[in-house]
């Protein structure tokens, strides 16, 4: 499993066509999760990321496997972008032993240290100071690794955001704080909870660069993260990047997002990150006409096969709840 994960990690780092495929794969798995709920195969909840695939893949493309990533409970996309397989993610969602941590975590908890993915955190904002700490390790040990926190717009209003970024700034830590502004914190539109238009503007108060990035454009995300990573690796400290994106689904499985204004989804879908990137690759000649559609069909079939495989996997036994409580 580990070599496959590393190969998937490397593909996204080096190959833009692979980035397209990965975005399609993420969308396909997230769409499949809905069906799994309908079949009664998912216990608990799940938070999907349709519409935000360009952020996950653009971030992963700019990082090295030795960099650390702190991610949230909306982490299926980020995990797969970094290299987790659909089986590992779906296995965790369904609570099967083939999940990334053996099926004991559920949808919100993924981890794979070989690609730098620290345990994903289900507490809003928690990963911001944790990423500062991972960056501290790089600084103390004198490596040129960086640590990344990926969090939602809702996290920008919790104390951990302020404390974590402030510490990273005063200590000039090699960290990148990436806000996935998907326009909603749980059920609330951002304007109801945040008095400014751009969360990136908050960077000013920490004395660090802040940048608004088109989160629907995987190339733009990749370029912004690469620049922030270069700055961090050079010892020039952290950055705050705000990815403007859109959450196609509701907050969690039970939320059908009835609060969304009419036409909002349609407006964002005109700039769907997968469709626009596919068209760009065709325009650049990297893909032939009609190839994005063929890739989509093939990858979706592979994801469906992976999901079918997970359905046959075992659930963890009683002994698993006594494992890894203490080292």
């Amino acid at each position: 499993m580990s070599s496959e994960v590393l190969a998937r990690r490397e593909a996204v780092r080096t190959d833009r066509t692979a980035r397209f495929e990965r975005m399609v794969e993420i969308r396909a798995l997230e769409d499949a999760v809905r069906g799994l709920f309908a079949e009664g195969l998912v216990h608990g909840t799940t938070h999907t990321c349709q519409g935000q695939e360009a952020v996950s893949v653009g971030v992963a493309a700019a990082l090295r496997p030795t960099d650390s990533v702190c991610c949230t409970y909306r982490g299926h996309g980020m995990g797969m972008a970094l290299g987790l397989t659909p089986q590992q993610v779906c296995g965790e969602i369904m609570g099967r032993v083939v999940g990334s941590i053996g099926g004991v975590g559920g949808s919100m908890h993924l981890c794979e240290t070989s690609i730098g993915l620290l345990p994903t955190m289900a507490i809003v904002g928690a990963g911001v100071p944790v990423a500062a700490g991972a960056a501290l390790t790089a600084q103390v040990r004198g490596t040129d690794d960086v640590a990344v926190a990926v969090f939602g717009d809702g996290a920008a209003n919790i104390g951990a955001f302020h404390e974590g970024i402030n510490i990273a700034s005063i200590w000039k830590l090699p960290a990148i704080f990436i806000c996935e502004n998907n326009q909603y914190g749980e059920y609330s539109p951002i304007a109801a909870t945040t008095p400014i238009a751009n969360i990136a503007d908050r960077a000013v108060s920490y004395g660090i660069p802040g940048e608004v990035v088109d989160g629907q454009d995987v190339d733009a995300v990749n370029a912004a993260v690469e620049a922030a990573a270069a700055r961090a690796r050079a010892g020039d400290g952290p950055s705050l990047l705000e990815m403007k994106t859109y959450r196609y689904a509701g907050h969690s499985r039970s939320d059908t997002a009835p609060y969304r204004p009419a036409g909002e989804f349609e407006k964002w879908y005109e700039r769907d990150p997968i469709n626009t990137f596919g068209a760009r690759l065709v325009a650049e000649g990297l893909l032939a006409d009609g190839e994005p559609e063929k890739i989509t069909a093939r990858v979706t079939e592979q994801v469906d096969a992976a999901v079918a495989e997970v359905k046959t996997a075992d659930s963890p036994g009683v002994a698993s709840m006594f494992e890894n409580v203490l080292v």
Partner: protein
Amino acid sequence: MARMRMNQAIAAAIGDEMRENPDVVTFGEDVAVAGGPFKTSDGLLEEFGPLRVRDTPIAEMGFMGAAVGAAATGLRPVAEIMFVEFLGVALDQLVTEAAKFNYLSGGTVRVPMVMRASVGAGLGFGCQHSQVMESWMVGSPGLKIAVLSGPGNAYGLTRAAIRDDNPVAVLEPRILYAVRGDVTTGVEGIIPLGQAATLASGNDITLVSCGSTVRTCLAAAGEADGWTADVIDLQTLQPWDTEAVLSSVARTGRLAVVEECPYSGGWGADIVAKVVSEAFGDLSAPPMRITAPDVHVPFGKELEQRYLPSAEYVTAQVGELLATGESPPHWWERDGALV
């Protein structure tokens, strides 16, 4: 062997671990330049430099989170919470992140961090700076909890905590920082977590103590007239040394647990429950808890002393238990106590 104050023993322990392992770092509010508000990191900045010894902003959530992230990626951070009450704003990072990362990584991520905090009453700091708050942590699987009772075990437990691969909370009674004692330094001074110390031996009762109540129990046993006691310093509350307690009670037949915390939810309830469940036949009297009342720590000197279980109070309660064979009422339950 060296003679030192408890705060010096803590600084010596951190320093010795830092000298042996470049991954050990320490930070907290005024830990570096000032040497710690209680001088528990005096001299560390000068020896190890600002990369490894840092002052943080007053931001417990932030620097506890940084400790979690640093530990999860290979360092062994020792983060100081000046007063344990300040942990309230950072509890997520300790009990919901640090304690669960090993589980939530399928055993691939370890969080070898130490959260040191000063605890307890007796110095007139008022009710927001005088609590012990073990109860915030004892019910959180994935954490170990050590409690210092003086310079002797301060050195050994602190070093063991830094070496442990789990997150460890080290609670330091503030009232003991200036107490002097003999300290066995070096690796032979390291005290394994989970191991109690039996500090006095007797025949009539087992006094189980921890932190500030250790010296209370030793003084009580010293003042006893007509009875003798085993005095056990648990040293580690999670996991605690069941064998030391059960084997003592098997011999003495009686148990008193002496705690600084309020009665409700105190750690002593677990000790009593275990003994009643597993050694009921050994008991010749009901097990007894001696605690503070379920109130806020009072500020005034006399009231604060009344609040804390004193040696005289322990002696009196034990004497009554032995005389009557029944668990005596707490002082605040007696007629006229609140006048």
